[in-house]
């Protein structure tokens, strides 16, 4: 491989690790909402696919490592995926062990990442012979995916009912854009609809504020109170295998193998399920919590890695919640990537593996070290200096710009419309996965139901 390409991958990996070490700490940042727009923008800006992959892998590894830091220090999740860890982390915090909690989580995360890379490659090679068959049923598969995910959501009935109407909204807008000549016949608007769904819940909340009655009846809060425990940090470079007990290492590794096997299912659901399963029988609350957080963190890291690697190596279609959410741009970012020509097609398997290893290694070394040494400082920095308003503003800005890029002024309103609908549905228990699956299968659904 060309040394220049390797340099690019290292640089992209470093950028991803630094950026997402900070974003990972910010409370409540949804993985899809923070990863997808930036990855997309980089792809569209013409960054090489090698660097993009290294960036993305480094970003998810770093984000998974740091989103557990605020859980340990302040009991608030740094991301959706860290939410299941709050309960066991609070047990450790009550026993004055926040310090231990960060180390256990970060070490679990490192083990999960390391174990899941070879497991994912193995699984991908196993799936590869069936890839052509899988790809030829693309529309049907995404539709079945929507139905399947709908059955796993909180509001099953609504999720099932909205499949056709939501597909109608998406295809309807596309047909309108074609009919009025806003976009060329051979261009399918995708990116901005995807982002519209992603920030739908925020758009919906903001629009609710426009209604005087709703505004008056909304619960009002003072400053968010965060109890912050200073943790003791280590000087030397910590060894994850020494921080975890033997049993914890085994259960973390076992968890990451299981997590990789179920790459096509919801990572949060699997984390809660396996985390409970693997720690349930321990009586001592501290030991149980410690086992639970190390296993859970290893699991989320592993499901993330396999969820992106397996579809990327074997299929070339985003067939997992991670690939269809945060990693979507790696599969579909017209005009650079589309379903028939993306990272899967442009890079060989060994190139994908090299980029993945570079990205993961940079994030693990940089972020793991930083997380261990500067946990207090990072939290204080983000909590005190980065206002939540600015984060929301940045993502809104990115979405508006990409909406304009896709189909001009009218599309700002098109994305707004999709965002409002998606936000309303999300509020009522239809999760992102279902809506993304519908977005992918919309042309197929309309082809079947329209004829």
């Amino acid at each position: 491989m060309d040394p220049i390409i390797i340099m690019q991958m290292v640089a992209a990996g470093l950028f991803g690790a630094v950026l997402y070490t900070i974003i990972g700490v910010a409370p409540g940042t949804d993985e899809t909402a923070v990863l997808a727009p930036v990855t997309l923008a980089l792809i569209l800006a013409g960054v090489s696919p090698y660097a993009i992959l290294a960036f993305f892998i480094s970003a998810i590894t770093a984000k998974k490592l740091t989103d557990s830091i605020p859980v340990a220090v302040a009991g608030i999740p740094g991301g959706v995926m860290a939410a299941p860890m709050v309960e066991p982390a609070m047990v450790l915090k009550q026993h004055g062990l926040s310090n231990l909690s960060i180390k256990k989580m970060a070490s679990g995360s490192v083990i999960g990442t390391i174990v899941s890379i070879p497991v994912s490659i193995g699984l991908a090679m196993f799936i590869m012979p069936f890839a052509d068959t899988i790809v030829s049923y693309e529309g049907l598969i995404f539709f079945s995916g929507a139905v399947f995910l709908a059955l796993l959501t909180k509001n099953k009935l609504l999720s099932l009912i909205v499949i056709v109407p939501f597909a109608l909204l998406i295809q309807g807008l596309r047909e309108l854009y074609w009919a009025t000549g806003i976009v060329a016949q051979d261009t399918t608007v995708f990116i901005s609809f995807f982002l519209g769904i992603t920030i739908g819940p925020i758009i919906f909340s903001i629009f609710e504020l426009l209604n005087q009655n709703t505004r008056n009846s909304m619960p009002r809060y003072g400053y968010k109170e965060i109890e912050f425990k200073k943790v003791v940090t280590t000087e030397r470079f910590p060894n994850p295998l020494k921080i975890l007990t033997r049993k914890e290492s085994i259960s973390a590794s076992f968890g990451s193998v299981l997590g990789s096997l179920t790459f096509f299912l919801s990572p949060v659901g699997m984390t809660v399920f396996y985390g409970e399963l693997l720690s349930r029988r321990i009586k001592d609350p501290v030991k149980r919590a410690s086992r639970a957080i190390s296993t859970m963190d290893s699991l989320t890291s592993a499901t993330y890695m396999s969820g992106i690697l397996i579809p990327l190596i074997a299929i070339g279609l985003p067939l997992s919640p991670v690939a269809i959410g945060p990693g979507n741009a790696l599969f579909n970012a017209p005009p650079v990537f589309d379903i028939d020509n993306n990272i899967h097609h442009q890079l060989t398997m060994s190139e994908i593996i090299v980029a993945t290893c570079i990205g993961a290694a940079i994030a693990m070394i940089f972020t793991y070290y930083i997380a261990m040494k500067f946990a207090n400082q990072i939290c204080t920095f983000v909590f005190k200096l980065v206002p939540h308003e600015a984060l929301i503003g940045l993502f809104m800005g990115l979405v508006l710009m990409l909406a304009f890029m896709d189909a001009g002024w009218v599309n700002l309103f098109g994305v707004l419309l999709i965002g409002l609908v998606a936000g309303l549905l999300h509020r009522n228990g239809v999760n992102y996965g279902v809506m993304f699956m519908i977005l992918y299968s919309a042309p197929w659904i309309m082809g079947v139901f329209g004829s």
Partner: protein
Amino acid sequence: MSNQRKNLVEIWEDHVHIKDLVIAVLLCSVPALGGYMLAPNEPPLPLAIGLGSAFVGFVIACIVIKPKRHLEEIDEE
């Protein structure tokens, strides 16, 4: 604290002040869109300038808007 008046709403798991939110959204989206449109029409310039200006807007927003969090530091043990 004096600014403990309850005038914040919860969006996306954190507390925000509505007026500040509007300011932040404007500070980021106006430069993003403006940068994209005013840039010379040679890809990837529009996108790069749009992104850059959005980030500058974000930094300004971080400076002019105060985070609505109150940290209470407790020493371990």
